[in-house]
Protein backbone atom coordinates (compact mmCIF):
# COMPACT_ATOMS: atom_id res chain seq x y z
CA UNK A 1 0.00 0.00 0.00
CA UNK A 2 2.77 2.34 0.97
CA UNK A 3 4.63 1.83 -2.28
CA UNK A 4 1.55 2.52 -4.41
CA UNK A 5 1.11 5.90 -2.70
CA UNK A 6 4.75 6.74 -3.37
CA UNK A 7 4.30 5.72 -6.95
CA UNK A 8 1.22 7.87 -7.32
CA UNK A 9 3.06 10.84 -5.87
CA UNK A 10 5.97 10.33 -8.23
CA UNK A 11 3.65 10.17 -11.22
CA UNK A 12 1.81 13.26 -10.00
CA UNK A 13 5.06 15.18 -9.76
CA UNK A 14 6.32 14.09 -13.15
CA UNK A 15 3.03 14.68 -14.96
CA UNK A 16 2.55 18.10 -13.40
CA UNK A 17 6.12 19.10 -14.17
CA UNK A 18 5.59 18.24 -17.84
CA UNK A 19 2.19 19.92 -17.94
CA UNK A 20 3.61 23.12 -16.47
CA UNK A 21 6.57 23.17 -18.84
CA UNK A 22 4.29 22.69 -21.85
CA UNK A 23 1.85 25.32 -20.65
CA UNK A 24 4.53 27.76 -19.53
CA UNK A 25 4.79 29.84 -22.74
CA UNK A 26 1.04 30.51 -22.68
CA UNK A 27 1.11 31.27 -18.96
CA UNK A 28 4.02 33.64 -19.48
CA UNK A 29 2.19 35.45 -22.27
CA UNK A 30 -0.90 35.94 -20.13
CA UNK A 31 1.30 37.17 -17.29
CA UNK A 32 3.21 39.56 -19.53
CA UNK A 33 -0.06 41.08 -20.68
CA UNK A 34 -0.56 42.43 -17.17
CA UNK A 35 2.89 43.96 -16.86
CA UNK A 36 4.12 47.38 -17.79
CA UNK A 37 6.40 47.59 -20.81
CA UNK A 38 9.43 48.00 -18.57
CA UNK A 39 8.71 44.93 -16.50
CA UNK A 40 7.94 42.90 -19.60
CA UNK A 41 11.53 43.03 -20.84
CA UNK A 42 13.23 42.95 -17.43
CA UNK A 43 16.11 40.52 -16.91
CA UNK A 44 15.92 38.48 -14.79
CA UNK A 45 12.22 38.07 -15.65
CA UNK A 46 10.01 39.39 -12.87
CA UNK A 47 7.51 36.93 -11.49
CA UNK A 48 6.10 39.21 -8.82
CA UNK A 49 4.85 42.56 -9.92
CA UNK A 50 1.91 44.86 -9.58
CA UNK A 51 -0.60 43.78 -12.21
CA UNK A 52 -1.76 46.56 -14.46
CA UNK A 53 -4.43 46.76 -17.12
CA UNK A 54 -2.63 49.48 -19.05
CA UNK A 55 -1.63 47.06 -21.80
CA UNK A 56 -5.24 46.10 -22.34
CA UNK A 57 -6.39 49.71 -22.23
CA UNK A 58 -3.92 50.73 -24.89
CA UNK A 59 -4.84 47.82 -27.13
CA UNK A 60 -8.53 48.59 -26.81
CA UNK A 61 -7.90 52.24 -27.55
CA UNK A 62 -5.94 51.50 -30.68
CA UNK A 63 -8.02 48.82 -32.34
CA UNK A 64 -11.62 47.80 -32.32
CA UNK A 65 -11.23 44.37 -30.73
CA UNK A 66 -14.95 43.67 -30.79
CA UNK A 67 -15.17 44.16 -34.53
CA UNK A 68 -12.26 41.81 -35.22
CA UNK A 69 -13.70 39.25 -32.82
CA UNK A 70 -17.13 39.38 -34.46
CA UNK A 71 -15.52 38.92 -37.86
CA UNK A 72 -13.68 35.88 -36.56
CA UNK A 73 -16.84 34.38 -35.13
CA UNK A 74 -18.88 35.02 -38.28
CA UNK A 75 -16.20 33.68 -40.60
CA UNK A 76 -15.39 30.53 -38.64
CA UNK A 77 -19.03 29.63 -37.98
CA UNK A 78 -20.14 30.56 -41.49
CA UNK A 79 -17.43 28.60 -43.25
CA UNK A 80 -18.00 25.59 -41.00
CA UNK A 81 -21.75 25.51 -41.64
CA UNK A 82 -21.22 25.90 -45.36
CA UNK A 83 -18.59 23.16 -45.40
CA UNK A 84 -20.88 20.79 -43.50
CA UNK A 85 -23.73 21.58 -45.86
CA UNK A 86 -21.63 20.58 -48.83
CA UNK A 87 -19.75 17.75 -47.15
CA UNK A 88 -22.74 15.82 -45.82
CA UNK A 89 -24.14 14.95 -49.28
CA UNK A 90 -20.63 14.36 -50.63
CA UNK A 91 -19.68 12.02 -47.82
CA UNK A 92 -23.08 10.35 -48.06
CA UNK A 93 -22.60 9.43 -51.68
CA UNK A 94 -19.04 8.29 -51.04
CA UNK A 95 -19.99 6.12 -48.09
CA UNK A 96 -23.18 4.54 -49.40
CA UNK A 97 -22.80 4.63 -53.16
CA UNK A 98 -19.10 3.90 -53.54
CA UNK A 99 -17.47 3.48 -56.89
CA UNK A 100 -14.08 1.88 -57.50
CA UNK A 101 -12.63 5.39 -57.64
CA UNK A 102 -14.03 6.62 -54.33
CA UNK A 103 -10.87 5.86 -52.35
CA UNK A 104 -8.69 7.55 -54.91
CA UNK A 105 -10.91 10.62 -55.00
CA UNK A 106 -10.75 10.91 -51.23
CA UNK A 107 -6.98 10.63 -51.13
CA UNK A 108 -6.66 13.11 -53.95
CA UNK A 109 -8.88 15.59 -52.12
CA UNK A 110 -6.76 15.23 -49.01
CA UNK A 111 -3.56 15.69 -50.97
CA UNK A 112 -4.74 19.08 -52.24
CA UNK A 113 -4.47 20.16 -48.61
CA UNK A 114 -0.76 19.53 -48.84
CA UNK A 115 -0.38 22.21 -51.48
CA UNK A 116 0.99 25.40 -49.97
CA UNK A 117 -1.85 27.95 -50.18
CA UNK A 118 0.56 30.49 -51.62
CA UNK A 119 0.68 28.34 -54.76
CA UNK A 120 -2.87 29.37 -55.61
CA UNK A 121 -2.74 32.82 -54.03
CA UNK A 122 -2.32 34.70 -57.31
CA UNK A 123 -5.26 33.10 -59.14
CA UNK A 124 -7.49 33.37 -56.08
CA UNK A 125 -6.52 37.00 -55.55
CA UNK A 126 -7.27 37.89 -59.17
CA UNK A 127 -10.58 35.97 -59.08
CA UNK A 128 -11.60 37.68 -55.87
CA UNK A 129 -10.70 41.09 -57.27
CA UNK A 130 -12.86 40.54 -60.34
CA UNK A 131 -15.75 39.16 -58.29
CA UNK A 132 -15.53 41.99 -55.76
CA UNK A 133 -14.90 39.58 -52.89
CA UNK A 134 -11.69 41.16 -51.59
CA UNK A 135 -11.97 42.27 -47.98
CA UNK A 136 -15.47 40.86 -47.64
CA UNK A 137 -16.73 38.39 -45.07
CA UNK A 138 -18.43 36.23 -47.69
CA UNK A 139 -15.17 35.92 -49.61
CA UNK A 140 -13.31 34.81 -46.51
CA UNK A 141 -16.08 32.35 -45.64
CA UNK A 142 -15.83 30.79 -49.10
CA UNK A 143 -12.06 30.44 -48.98
CA UNK A 144 -12.07 28.93 -45.46
CA UNK A 145 -14.81 26.57 -46.48
CA UNK A 146 -12.70 25.38 -49.42
CA UNK A 147 -9.67 25.13 -47.17
CA UNK A 148 -11.38 22.82 -44.66
CA UNK A 149 -13.63 20.93 -47.05
CA UNK A 150 -11.26 17.99 -47.76
CA UNK A 151 -10.78 17.25 -44.06
CA UNK A 152 -14.46 17.68 -43.30
CA UNK A 153 -15.50 15.33 -46.10
CA UNK A 154 -12.92 12.77 -45.08
CA UNK A 155 -13.95 12.80 -41.43
CA UNK A 156 -17.66 12.60 -42.23
CA UNK A 157 -16.91 9.75 -44.62
CA UNK A 158 -15.28 7.71 -41.85
CA UNK A 159 -18.29 8.32 -39.58
CA UNK A 160 -20.88 7.53 -42.23
CA UNK A 161 -19.07 4.36 -43.23
CA UNK A 162 -19.65 2.95 -39.75
CA UNK A 163 -23.42 3.37 -39.92
CA UNK A 164 -25.00 -0.03 -40.58
CA UNK A 165 -26.57 -0.05 -44.03
CA UNK A 166 -29.54 -2.02 -42.64
CA UNK A 167 -30.79 0.99 -40.72
CA UNK A 168 -30.94 3.12 -43.85
CA UNK A 169 -32.44 0.18 -45.70
CA UNK A 170 -35.20 -0.07 -43.10
CA UNK A 171 -35.87 3.63 -43.44
CA UNK A 172 -36.18 3.30 -47.17
CA UNK A 173 -38.66 0.43 -46.71
CA UNK A 174 -40.80 2.73 -44.62
CA UNK A 175 -40.91 5.12 -47.54
CA UNK A 176 -38.22 7.62 -46.65
CA UNK A 177 -36.70 9.50 -49.57
CA UNK A 178 -32.99 10.21 -49.76
CA UNK A 179 -33.42 13.60 -48.15
CA UNK A 180 -35.42 12.22 -45.20
CA UNK A 181 -32.98 9.38 -44.93
CA UNK A 182 -30.11 11.82 -44.47
CA UNK A 183 -31.96 14.29 -42.28
CA UNK A 184 -33.80 11.93 -39.93
CA UNK A 185 -31.56 8.87 -39.84
CA UNK A 186 -27.99 9.61 -40.83
CA UNK A 187 -27.48 13.00 -39.24
CA UNK A 188 -28.92 12.10 -35.82
CA UNK A 189 -26.98 8.82 -35.79
CA UNK A 190 -23.65 10.48 -36.47
CA UNK A 191 -24.25 13.71 -34.59
CA UNK A 192 -21.22 13.31 -32.26
CA UNK A 193 -19.01 12.86 -35.28
CA UNK A 194 -20.52 15.80 -37.12
CA UNK A 195 -20.16 17.98 -34.04
CA UNK A 196 -16.50 17.19 -33.60
CA UNK A 197 -15.83 17.73 -37.29
CA UNK A 198 -17.49 21.11 -37.01
CA UNK A 199 -15.46 21.99 -33.91
CA UNK A 200 -12.20 21.15 -35.62
CA UNK A 201 -13.21 23.21 -38.62
CA UNK A 202 -14.08 26.18 -36.39
CA UNK A 203 -10.71 25.98 -34.64
CA UNK A 204 -8.78 25.72 -37.90
CA UNK A 205 -10.66 28.66 -39.41
CA UNK A 206 -10.21 30.77 -36.30
CA UNK A 207 -6.45 30.23 -36.35
CA UNK A 208 -5.90 30.62 -40.07
CA UNK A 209 -3.58 33.50 -40.87
CA UNK A 210 -2.42 33.28 -44.46
CA UNK A 211 -5.62 33.96 -46.36
CA UNK A 212 -6.96 36.47 -43.89
CA UNK A 213 -3.79 38.54 -44.14
CA UNK A 214 -3.70 38.47 -47.92
CA UNK A 215 -7.36 38.85 -48.77
CA UNK A 216 -8.58 41.37 -46.21
CA UNK A 217 -7.51 44.86 -45.31
CA UNK A 218 -9.87 46.32 -42.77
CA UNK A 219 -13.60 45.76 -42.89
CA UNK A 220 -13.52 41.93 -42.94
CA UNK A 221 -10.27 41.39 -41.03
CA UNK A 222 -10.48 38.69 -38.32
CA UNK A 223 -8.42 38.35 -35.15
CA UNK A 224 -5.35 36.96 -36.91
CA UNK A 225 -5.08 40.28 -38.74
CA UNK A 226 -5.60 42.06 -35.42
CA UNK A 227 -2.53 40.29 -34.03
CA UNK A 228 -0.53 41.00 -37.15
CA UNK A 229 -1.29 44.70 -36.84
CA UNK A 230 0.32 44.66 -33.42
CA UNK A 231 3.25 42.44 -34.26
CA UNK A 232 4.90 44.16 -37.19
CA UNK A 233 5.23 47.84 -36.40
CA UNK A 234 5.81 47.54 -32.68
CA UNK A 235 6.98 44.02 -32.10
CA UNK A 236 9.02 45.27 -29.18
CA UNK A 237 6.11 46.36 -27.03
CA UNK A 238 5.73 42.97 -25.46
CA UNK A 239 3.14 43.83 -22.85
CA UNK A 240 0.76 45.26 -25.41
CA UNK A 241 1.43 42.40 -27.80
CA UNK A 242 0.78 39.88 -25.04
CA UNK A 243 -2.45 41.57 -24.05
CA UNK A 244 -3.64 41.51 -27.65
CA UNK A 245 -2.57 37.89 -28.09
CA UNK A 246 -4.35 36.82 -24.94
CA UNK A 247 -7.54 38.44 -26.15
CA UNK A 248 -7.19 36.75 -29.54
CA UNK A 249 -6.71 33.21 -28.26
CA UNK A 250 -8.94 33.33 -25.17
CA UNK A 251 -12.26 32.55 -26.91
CA UNK A 252 -10.95 29.59 -28.89
CA UNK A 253 -8.90 28.25 -25.98
CA UNK A 254 -11.94 28.24 -23.72
CA UNK A 255 -14.06 26.66 -26.44
CA UNK A 256 -11.38 24.04 -27.00
CA UNK A 257 -11.12 23.25 -23.29
CA UNK A 258 -14.87 22.94 -22.91
CA UNK A 259 -15.30 20.69 -25.91
CA UNK A 260 -12.10 18.63 -25.92
CA UNK A 261 -13.79 15.43 -24.79
CA UNK A 262 -16.48 15.79 -27.42
CA UNK A 263 -13.96 16.65 -30.09
CA UNK A 264 -11.68 13.71 -29.46
CA UNK A 265 -14.55 11.30 -29.21
CA UNK A 266 -15.59 12.31 -32.69
CA UNK A 267 -12.08 12.49 -34.08
CA UNK A 268 -11.33 8.95 -33.03
CA UNK A 269 -14.86 7.62 -33.40
CA UNK A 270 -14.40 6.18 -36.84
CA UNK A 271 -10.69 5.69 -37.03
CA UNK A 272 -9.62 4.55 -33.59
CA UNK A 273 -11.35 1.90 -31.60
Amino acid at each position, binding site marked *: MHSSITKKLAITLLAWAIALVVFFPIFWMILTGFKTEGEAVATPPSLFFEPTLSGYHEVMARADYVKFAINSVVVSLGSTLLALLIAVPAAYSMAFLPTPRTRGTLLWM*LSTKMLPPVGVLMPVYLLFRDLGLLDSLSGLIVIYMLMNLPIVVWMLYTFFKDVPKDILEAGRMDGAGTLQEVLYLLVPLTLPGIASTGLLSVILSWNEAFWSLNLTTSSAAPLTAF*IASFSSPEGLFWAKLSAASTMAIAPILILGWMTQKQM*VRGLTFGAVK
Partner: protein
Amino acid sequence: MLVPLCMTLWFSFQRYNLLNPFISGFAGVDNYTYLLTDPALWTAMGNTLLLVGWVLAITVVGGTLLAVLFQQEFFGRGIARLLVIAPFFVMPTVSALIWKNMMMHPVNGVLAWLFNLFGFQAVDWFSSLPLTSIILIVSWEWLPFALLILLTAIQSLDDDQVEAARMDGAGPIAIFWFITLPHLKRAISVVIMIEMIFLLTIFAEIFVTTSGGPGLASTNLAYLIYIRALLDFDVGGASAGGVIAIVLANIVAIFLIRTVARHLET
Protein backbone atom coordinates in the same frame (compact mmCIF):
# COMPACT_ATOMS: atom_id res chain seq x y z
CA MET B 1 -10.28 24.56 -55.74
CA LEU B 2 -10.05 23.38 -59.34
CA VAL B 3 -10.31 26.76 -61.06
CA PRO B 4 -7.35 28.33 -59.24
CA LEU B 5 -5.43 25.14 -59.81
CA CYS B 6 -5.90 25.40 -63.57
CA MET B 7 -5.00 29.09 -63.49
CA THR B 8 -1.84 28.24 -61.58
CA LEU B 9 -1.04 25.65 -64.22
CA TRP B 10 -1.62 28.25 -66.95
CA PHE B 11 0.43 30.96 -65.26
CA SER B 12 3.27 28.54 -64.71
CA PHE B 13 3.87 28.44 -68.45
CA GLN B 14 3.76 32.21 -68.82
CA ARG B 15 6.22 35.03 -68.43
CA TYR B 16 4.31 37.06 -65.92
CA ASN B 17 5.93 39.57 -63.67
CA LEU B 18 3.83 42.06 -61.75
CA LEU B 19 6.59 44.65 -61.81
CA ASN B 20 6.99 44.70 -65.55
CA PRO B 21 3.82 44.29 -67.60
CA PHE B 22 5.75 44.39 -70.87
CA ILE B 23 7.33 41.03 -70.24
CA SER B 24 4.63 38.61 -71.21
CA GLY B 25 3.86 35.76 -73.50
CA PHE B 26 4.31 32.07 -73.52
CA ALA B 27 7.37 30.86 -71.69
CA GLY B 28 7.02 27.17 -72.26
CA VAL B 29 8.92 25.21 -69.72
CA ASP B 30 11.37 28.05 -68.97
CA ASN B 31 9.93 28.62 -65.52
CA TYR B 32 10.37 24.96 -64.70
CA THR B 33 13.92 24.66 -65.96
CA TYR B 34 14.79 27.84 -64.10
CA LEU B 35 13.30 26.48 -60.87
CA LEU B 36 14.60 22.96 -61.14
CA THR B 37 18.13 24.19 -61.72
CA ASP B 38 17.82 26.68 -58.86
CA PRO B 39 19.71 25.29 -55.86
CA ALA B 40 17.26 27.12 -53.58
CA LEU B 41 14.54 24.66 -54.57
CA TRP B 42 16.55 21.67 -53.39
CA THR B 43 17.53 23.39 -50.14
CA ALA B 44 13.89 24.20 -49.53
CA MET B 45 12.82 20.66 -50.30
CA GLY B 46 15.42 19.28 -47.92
CA ASN B 47 14.28 21.67 -45.22
CA THR B 48 10.66 20.70 -45.77
CA LEU B 49 11.46 17.02 -45.35
CA LEU B 50 13.64 17.64 -42.29
CA LEU B 51 10.92 19.75 -40.70
CA VAL B 52 8.14 17.25 -41.35
CA GLY B 53 10.28 14.26 -40.38
CA TRP B 54 11.57 15.67 -37.11
CA VAL B 55 8.26 17.09 -35.96
CA LEU B 56 6.50 13.81 -36.73
CA ALA B 57 9.16 11.86 -34.83
CA ILE B 58 9.07 14.16 -31.80
CA THR B 59 5.30 14.43 -31.56
CA VAL B 60 4.54 10.74 -32.15
CA VAL B 61 7.19 9.42 -29.76
CA GLY B 62 6.58 12.16 -27.20
CA GLY B 63 2.83 11.89 -27.59
CA THR B 64 2.86 8.15 -27.01
CA LEU B 65 5.01 8.40 -23.89
CA LEU B 66 2.94 11.27 -22.53
CA ALA B 67 -0.28 9.39 -23.26
CA VAL B 68 0.96 6.50 -21.14
CA LEU B 69 1.92 8.91 -18.35
CA PHE B 70 -1.29 10.93 -18.39
CA GLN B 71 -3.42 7.84 -18.43
CA GLN B 72 -2.17 6.87 -14.94
CA GLU B 73 -4.14 7.92 -11.91
CA PHE B 74 -2.71 10.99 -10.22
CA PHE B 75 -3.75 14.08 -8.30
CA GLY B 76 -5.28 16.86 -10.39
CA ARG B 77 -5.22 14.80 -13.58
CA GLY B 78 -8.06 16.68 -15.25
CA ILE B 79 -6.41 20.07 -14.88
CA ALA B 80 -2.96 18.81 -15.85
CA ARG B 81 -4.45 17.37 -19.03
CA LEU B 82 -6.13 20.65 -19.91
CA LEU B 83 -2.83 22.51 -19.47
CA VAL B 84 -0.95 20.07 -21.65
CA ILE B 85 -3.35 20.23 -24.61
CA ALA B 86 -3.66 24.03 -24.56
CA PRO B 87 -0.99 24.82 -27.20
CA PHE B 88 -3.03 23.12 -29.91
CA PHE B 89 -5.69 25.82 -29.70
CA VAL B 90 -3.30 28.74 -29.91
CA MET B 91 -3.10 30.30 -33.35
CA PRO B 92 0.25 29.65 -35.05
CA THR B 93 0.97 33.36 -35.43
CA VAL B 94 0.61 33.91 -31.71
CA SER B 95 2.65 30.89 -30.67
CA ALA B 96 5.42 31.94 -33.03
CA LEU B 97 5.36 35.42 -31.48
CA ILE B 98 5.46 34.07 -27.94
CA TRP B 99 8.45 31.88 -28.69
CA LYS B 100 10.24 34.55 -30.65
CA ASN B 101 9.83 37.38 -28.17
CA MET B 102 9.49 35.83 -24.77
CA MET B 103 11.10 32.39 -24.89
CA MET B 104 13.92 32.38 -27.42
CA HIS B 105 14.94 36.04 -27.42
CA PRO B 106 18.74 36.04 -26.98
CA VAL B 107 18.75 38.83 -24.39
CA ASN B 108 15.39 39.02 -22.66
CA GLY B 109 14.04 35.56 -23.34
CA VAL B 110 13.25 33.09 -20.60
CA LEU B 111 15.50 30.46 -22.16
CA ALA B 112 18.43 32.88 -22.26
CA TRP B 113 17.84 33.67 -18.61
CA LEU B 114 17.75 29.95 -17.72
CA PHE B 115 20.94 29.28 -19.66
CA ASN B 116 22.72 32.12 -17.90
CA LEU B 117 21.43 30.93 -14.54
CA PHE B 118 23.14 27.59 -15.04
CA GLY B 119 26.29 29.20 -16.37
CA PHE B 120 25.85 28.44 -20.06
CA GLN B 121 26.20 30.84 -22.93
CA ALA B 122 22.80 32.10 -24.09
CA VAL B 123 21.95 30.82 -27.56
CA ASP B 124 20.78 33.14 -30.30
CA TRP B 125 18.23 30.60 -31.47
CA PHE B 126 17.03 32.06 -34.72
CA SER B 127 20.37 33.00 -36.20
CA SER B 128 22.47 30.03 -35.11
CA LEU B 129 19.90 27.23 -35.03
CA PRO B 130 17.08 28.48 -37.27
CA LEU B 131 15.62 25.18 -38.45
CA THR B 132 15.96 23.59 -35.02
CA SER B 133 14.05 26.51 -33.50
CA ILE B 134 11.24 26.14 -36.02
CA ILE B 135 11.09 22.40 -35.36
CA LEU B 136 10.87 23.08 -31.61
CA ILE B 137 8.05 25.58 -31.99
CA VAL B 138 6.04 23.43 -34.38
CA SER B 139 6.53 20.35 -32.19
CA TRP B 140 5.23 22.32 -29.24
CA GLU B 141 2.10 23.12 -31.21
CA TRP B 142 1.44 19.58 -32.43
CA LEU B 143 2.50 17.48 -29.44
CA PRO B 144 -0.82 18.19 -27.68
CA PHE B 145 -2.73 17.04 -30.75
CA ALA B 146 -0.88 13.71 -30.83
CA LEU B 147 -1.36 13.35 -27.09
CA LEU B 148 -5.09 14.08 -27.32
CA ILE B 149 -5.68 11.38 -29.93
CA LEU B 150 -3.38 8.79 -28.39
CA LEU B 151 -4.74 9.35 -24.89
CA THR B 152 -8.24 8.54 -26.10
CA ALA B 153 -7.00 5.47 -27.91
CA ILE B 154 -5.08 4.23 -24.89
CA GLN B 155 -8.15 4.48 -22.69
CA SER B 156 -9.86 1.79 -24.75
CA LEU B 157 -7.05 -0.64 -23.96
CA ASP B 158 -8.36 -3.80 -22.38
CA ASP B 159 -7.37 -3.90 -18.70
CA ASP B 160 -7.79 -7.67 -18.49
CA GLN B 161 -5.25 -8.14 -21.21
CA VAL B 162 -2.70 -6.02 -19.34
CA GLU B 163 -3.48 -7.86 -16.12
CA ALA B 164 -3.04 -11.23 -17.81
CA ALA B 165 0.30 -10.15 -19.21
CA ARG B 166 1.40 -9.01 -15.78
CA MET B 167 0.38 -12.39 -14.33
CA ASP B 168 2.59 -14.03 -16.90
CA GLY B 169 5.48 -11.99 -15.58
CA ALA B 170 5.70 -9.20 -18.16
CA GLY B 171 7.40 -6.04 -16.90
CA PRO B 172 6.09 -2.53 -17.65
CA ILE B 173 8.39 -2.15 -20.66
CA ALA B 174 7.30 -5.46 -22.15
CA ILE B 175 3.66 -4.53 -21.61
CA PHE B 176 4.19 -1.19 -23.33
CA TRP B 177 6.04 -2.74 -26.26
CA PHE B 178 3.90 -5.80 -26.90
CA ILE B 179 0.44 -4.66 -25.83
CA THR B 180 0.08 -0.88 -25.66
CA LEU B 181 2.01 -0.06 -28.82
CA PRO B 182 0.24 -2.52 -31.14
CA HIS B 183 -3.06 -1.27 -29.73
CA LEU B 184 -2.11 2.30 -30.68
CA LYS B 185 -1.12 1.51 -34.25
CA ARG B 186 -4.29 2.87 -35.82
CA ALA B 187 -4.32 5.98 -33.69
CA ILE B 188 -0.69 6.66 -34.59
CA SER B 189 -1.57 6.33 -38.27
CA VAL B 190 -4.31 8.91 -37.88
CA VAL B 191 -1.94 11.30 -36.12
CA ILE B 192 0.73 10.91 -38.78
CA MET B 193 -1.71 11.47 -41.61
CA ILE B 194 -3.42 14.55 -40.19
CA GLU B 195 -0.17 16.12 -39.00
CA MET B 196 1.52 15.56 -42.32
CA ILE B 197 -1.19 17.42 -44.15
CA PHE B 198 -0.56 20.48 -42.02
CA LEU B 199 3.19 20.20 -41.62
CA LEU B 200 3.92 20.20 -45.34
CA THR B 201 2.54 23.72 -45.61
CA ILE B 202 3.95 25.30 -42.44
CA PHE B 203 4.12 29.00 -43.14
CA ALA B 204 3.15 31.36 -40.33
CA GLU B 205 5.81 30.12 -37.92
CA ILE B 206 8.59 30.73 -40.43
CA PHE B 207 7.15 34.02 -41.59
CA VAL B 208 6.97 35.42 -38.07
CA THR B 209 10.27 34.16 -36.68
CA THR B 210 13.12 33.73 -39.16
CA SER B 211 11.61 34.83 -42.48
CA GLY B 212 13.28 31.77 -43.95
CA GLY B 213 16.75 32.92 -43.01
CA PRO B 214 19.55 33.33 -42.38
CA GLY B 215 20.06 32.78 -46.07
CA LEU B 216 17.81 29.88 -46.90
CA ALA B 217 18.54 27.95 -43.72
CA SER B 218 14.93 27.70 -42.63
CA THR B 219 13.08 28.16 -45.93
CA ASN B 220 10.64 25.39 -46.72
CA LEU B 221 8.81 24.91 -49.99
CA ALA B 222 5.78 26.95 -48.97
CA TYR B 223 7.97 29.86 -47.94
CA LEU B 224 10.11 29.68 -51.09
CA ILE B 225 7.00 29.99 -53.25
CA TYR B 226 5.91 32.92 -51.13
CA ILE B 227 9.25 34.65 -51.69
CA ARG B 228 9.04 34.11 -55.44
CA ALA B 229 5.44 35.28 -55.72
CA LEU B 230 5.16 38.20 -53.34
CA LEU B 231 8.68 39.48 -52.92
CA ASP B 232 10.01 38.94 -56.43
CA PHE B 233 6.59 39.47 -58.05
CA ASP B 234 7.37 36.58 -60.36
CA VAL B 235 3.92 35.04 -60.86
CA GLY B 236 5.10 32.61 -63.54
CA GLY B 237 7.94 31.30 -61.42
CA ALA B 238 5.82 31.09 -58.30
CA SER B 239 3.10 29.23 -60.15
CA ALA B 240 5.64 26.75 -61.45
CA GLY B 241 6.81 26.33 -57.85
CA GLY B 242 3.21 25.73 -56.84
CA VAL B 243 2.83 23.04 -59.47
CA ILE B 244 6.03 21.37 -58.31
CA ALA B 245 4.70 21.51 -54.75
CA ILE B 246 1.45 19.85 -55.83
CA VAL B 247 3.32 17.09 -57.63
CA LEU B 248 5.59 16.59 -54.62
CA ALA B 249 2.67 16.61 -52.21
CA ASN B 250 0.95 13.98 -54.30
CA ILE B 251 4.01 11.76 -54.40
CA VAL B 252 4.45 11.99 -50.65
CA ALA B 253 0.71 11.60 -50.20
CA ILE B 254 0.41 8.48 -52.30
CA PHE B 255 3.49 6.95 -50.75
CA LEU B 256 2.63 7.69 -47.14
CA ILE B 257 -1.14 7.53 -47.19
CA ARG B 258 -1.03 4.14 -48.86
CA THR B 259 1.08 2.78 -46.02
CA VAL B 260 -0.96 4.55 -43.38
CA ALA B 261 -4.29 3.79 -45.02
CA ARG B 262 -3.57 0.10 -44.87
CA HIS B 263 -3.59 0.33 -41.09
CA LEU B 264 -6.85 2.23 -41.22
CA GLU B 265 -8.66 -0.33 -43.28
CA THR B 266 -8.49 -3.28 -40.93
